[in-house]
Structure formats: C-alpha cells, structure tokens
C-alpha cells in the first residue's frame, strides 16, 4: 500500500508533497485554534499506539493469514480529522525513515492515501453520518466497516493513479485497478471489523472517551469545501509546473538550471555543455558498428532493435552500441564509487 520512491516521478511526488504540506499547515493551524492542550501528548501516544497495535495480530479463520489494526480510521474516530491527520502523517514519516516503507519523495503520496483520504473523506462523509451523536453497537459496526472500506478503496485508487501518472511502471490502468481494488476490499473489511470492535470496546468500557472526541467538535466542524479546493489547487498547480519542467523541455532539469541561473553570464557555459553533448552524440553514433561486431549474424535482432523503439513512447532509442559501452562504463563507475568508499573508510580507520 505504501508508494515507493522508485515508482514515482518528481512531478507527481512534488505535487503531492506540496499539497500534503499545505494540509499539514492547515491542520496545525486548526489545532492551535482549539485551545485544549491535552491533545499534544494524546496525539503522540496514540501515534505510538498505532505502531504497538500492529504487533498484536489475530488469525483470520479458514484463511491461515492474520490481520491487525491499520490506523487512519480509528485515529479519526478518537481524535477528530485534524489531529488524526497530523498523527497519521507523523506515523508515516517514521515508517518512511526507519522502515524504508515508502520513501521521502513518496511521503506526500502516502500521507494523502493513508491520511487525508480516511481522515478528511471517509470519516466525515461515512462514519459521522452513520454513527451521528448517539452511537449504538450496530451503528458503530456499520459505520466503521463502510468508512474503512471506502477509505482503503480510495487509497488504493490513489496508488493506481499516482503510479499511472508517474509512468515508471508498465502496468495498464485497468489491470492495476483490478489487482489493487479487490485486495483492498478484503483488507478494508478486516480493518473495519477491527476498528468497530475496538471502538465498541472503548465505548462500553469508557464511554466518556468517545464523547470527548465527539464533543471536541468546535474544531471538528470541517470546512470540507475549503480543504478540498485548497488541496486541488496546490496539487494541480505544482504538478502542472513540475511536469512542464519535466516533459515539455528536452531536459527539464537542465532547462530550469539554465533559467534560474543568471542568463547571460552562463551562456557560454551552456553552449559549452551543448557542444559537449553534440560531441558525445557524434561519438556514440560510430559505436553501433562496434556493438554489433559480436552479434553480426543476428540480423533480425538488429532489425527489431532499431524498429522497436519507434512504436514505443518517444524515449531515446537505445542502440546496442551505446548499450555495450554503457555497460562497460557503468561497471567502471560502480567500481570507482565502491573504491572511493573503500578508500574513505580505510583512511577513516587509520586515523
């Protein structure tokens, strides 16, 4: 469920980062307006509770697998959306840093999928509507299951869309969708059952806790429209700007470098770089002869190699010549990097 850095593009990652950073700022501001300072330790301890609860699992009958508590929804029920969002964001940050679940750039995506969607969409729209002001056992059960399912379905859909827009994975939209949604339907049902059971337990043992969460609603009144509009605007603007950088120009990074640095002063250097590139291309253009020396009889392979990239997306045609020299150079570069590390380590030891 956690997106990985390896699968996203800077445009998608950056857009989601900007949007979730905005949401975090907004939630923090809302929390500050609410004067109840007992929230500070409560959020911290409940975040740790989410980790601890994952150590306790149960066997799901007849499947041989085991389930455990997921997170977002129970936090939203206990803390309300804003505090739950910040708590979930902190949980995901710790997971990204220590467990390598997700990654730094993918953190925005993950906070959106697993924090924003359950706390700001599934909780207010489903759970609160169903459970209302006077909870009963049945209402808690139905509300928690429905909200967990919706939250996880939306989250899985988010993963699919983010992967699709990044364009690193080859998975077609529909296949990926068919892969993700049913799995997360099952996970959602289990998570919903667990959430409902825990909330019922708390409701029976210490009803005032749920009432407290329900009563802390001066800040719980969501300006949903504002949040959504703000989120969409940030995401679209950042994504648009970043993807324009990334794809419109032959090389987004180079282009942005060129334009952010002083224009005229760096002009010669820019020219020099282009000249350098041109020379590289000249050199690599000779190389196919070299690359095919070994594979000379394999004419059909050569044909395919030159024909295939054309019907694919407009990526630079990888010819065999450049590939072989790339392989040699890659091995050399890797060796050099390893050697530098080894030398540094040795020097460090000697001191």
């Amino acid at each position, binding site marked *: 469920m956690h997106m990985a850095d390896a699968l996203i593009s800077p445009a998608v990652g950056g857009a989601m980062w900007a949007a979730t950073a905005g949401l975090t700022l907004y939630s923090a501001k809302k929390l500050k307006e609410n004067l109840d300072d007992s929230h500070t*330790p409560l959020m911290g301890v409940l975040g740790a509770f989410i980790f601890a609860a994952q150590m306790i699992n149960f066997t799901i009958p007849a499947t041989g697998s085991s389930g455990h508590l997921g997170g977002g929804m129970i936090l939203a029920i206990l803390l309300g959306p804003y505090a739950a969002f910040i708590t979930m964001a902190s949980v995901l940050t710790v997971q990204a840093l220590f467990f390598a679940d997700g*990654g730094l750039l993918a953190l925005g995506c993950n906070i959106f999928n697993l924090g924003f969607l359950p706390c700001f969409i599934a909780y207010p729209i489903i759970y609160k509507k169903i459970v209302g002001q006077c909870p009963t056992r049945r209402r808690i059960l139905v509300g928690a299951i429905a909200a967990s399912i919706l939250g996880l379905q939306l989250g899985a859909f988010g993963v699919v869309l983010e992967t699709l827009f990044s364009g690193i994975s080859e998975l077609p939209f529909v296949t990926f969708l068919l892969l993700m949604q049913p799995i997360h339907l099952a996970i959602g049902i289990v998570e919903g059952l667990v959430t409902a059971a825990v909330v019922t337990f708390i409701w029976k043992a210490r009803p005032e806790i749920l009432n407290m969460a329900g009563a802390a609603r001066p800040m719980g009144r969501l300006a949903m429209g504002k949040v959504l509009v703000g989120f969409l605007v940030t995401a679209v603007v950042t994504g648009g700007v970043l993807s324009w950088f990334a794809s419109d120009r032959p090389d987004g990074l180079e282009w942005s470098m060129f334009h952010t640095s002083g224009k005229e002063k760096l002009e010669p250097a820019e020219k020099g770089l282009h000249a350098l590139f041109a020379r590289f291309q000249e050199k690599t253009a000779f190389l196919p002869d070299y690359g095919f020396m070994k594979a000379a009889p394999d004419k059909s392979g050569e044909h395919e190699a030159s024909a295939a990239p054309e019907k694919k997306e407009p990526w630079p045609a*990888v010819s065999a010549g450049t590939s072989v020299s790339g392989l040699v150079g890659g091995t*050399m570069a890797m060796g050099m990097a390893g050697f530098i590390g080894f030398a540094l380590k040795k020097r460090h030891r000697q001191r």
Partner: protein
Amino acid sequence: MAKIASSFLDISYLDSLSCQQSPVHRLDPRSKVIATAFFIVSVVSFGKYEITGLIPFFLYPIVLIALGDLPLVYLLKKILLAAPFAVFIGMFNPLIDRAILMNLGPVGISGGWISFASIMLRFILTVSAVLALIASTGFASICMSLEKMGAPNSFAVQLLFLYRYIFVLTDEASRMVRARALRAFEGKGRGFKVFTSMIGQLLLRALDRAQRIHLAMRCRGFDGEIRVSRQLAFGGRDSAFLLGWSTLFVLMRLVDIPQWMGDRVAELIR
C-alpha cells in the same frame, strides 16, 4: 509479528548509530536533509529506461556510509527487507513491455527488463540514501531541522512525542503478545475476540498514559507550546557539503558519465 518486533529493535539500533562521532555525523542536519532530498529528486527524474546514468549516484550513499562509519551489511539487509513492494509492481514491466531494446550477443533484452532494472536501481539508491541519512543524523535532529525549515511546530512536536512513546508502547504490546502466546495452545486464544480486548486494553492504557503525561507536563509549566531549545549552527562545512553534492548531482544528472567512460574504452579497444 517477528518482523515488526525486529523492526523496533532496528529503530533503537539505527538510533545508536546516530550517536557516533564522524565527519558526517557532525554536519548540520539541515544540510543532510536537503542534500538527500535533492539526491532523491535527481535520481527519480531520470527516464524509465535509464540505467547507466543512475550508477554514478551510488557515490552519495557509499560516501555517507564510509565516512559515517555505518555498517554496510546491516543496511543492505534492511534494503532487501523493504524491497517487496517495488519488486512486485516492477515485475510487471518485463511481462508487459516485451519490445527488444538491446542486444548483448545473441541475447535480446526487452525494454521491460531494462525498466525493471532501472526501478531496482532507483529503489536501492533512494532507500540507501534515506537509511544513511537517519543512521548518521538521528531522529530528534531531523525533527528539529524540519521545524527550523518551516514545518509547523505541532508536527515536529508530534514526531518527537511519537518517537518517544513508540518504545514504551511496543514494549507493552510485546509483553501482552508474549503473555497470550504462553497461554494459547493449538491456535486457541488467537482469535478475534481475544484480539479486540487486547487492543482495547492497550488503547485504554495508552489513553491513561497520555493523561498522566499531560498532567505531568502541566505541573512543569506546559502552556500548549513546546519550545525546542537545542541550537543548530549552519556553518561553512555544511554549506560546502550541500553545495558540493548538489553541483555533483546536477552534473551527474546532465552528463551520462559511465556512457562517456565506456565510449572512451571502446575507442581505445578499436
């Protein structure tokens, strides 16, 4: 569960690594956080069939690991543990994208395998950089640097609180799990009912603990704002670290160094 329990051992181990003294550890956390973020963006911004261009980027994690005196084998194991998701999604590339892009002798290599290799390289690079960052910096310093760089105070405080209580609550949870394991025979007692009351108990204890902490904080003058007192000093070495690496990342992003070296070798052979 064994995996999660050992993950928490990992947290304390990574934390102990961050207490060492080394040139990398002494850097200001902000310079390391920004350099790592820049590193990840540069790595991820490559096209999906890129392999050679990614390889020079190994220099950054390798240098951090070597200079920071971090245990290489341990970090490699951690990277492997985190691999399943990227492998799972990436595995579909060779199945779907079968167009031959490259020939090595008689063996044709499809675009799918190339992009799969590229995903794996990105994965190793990004994960190793993040692990090297946390192992050479420590969580508290990262939180403080985040706050200094404009993250809301309540988020930074939340991270510090969370980190502080992870150890306490996971200890409690693991004791409960052990107690249940000692009393559960042939799978009895591992069902849903026992599970919910265990989680419920854990939650009640957590809530009580939060209340006690709150009262203790109030006794010591807590007024809703947490002031982080440790000072960070961003010196010349830090700017040099940040500038040097950023320049190198841009250079490595723009110029395919291994391709260039390979071409030189090819010329020599001819």
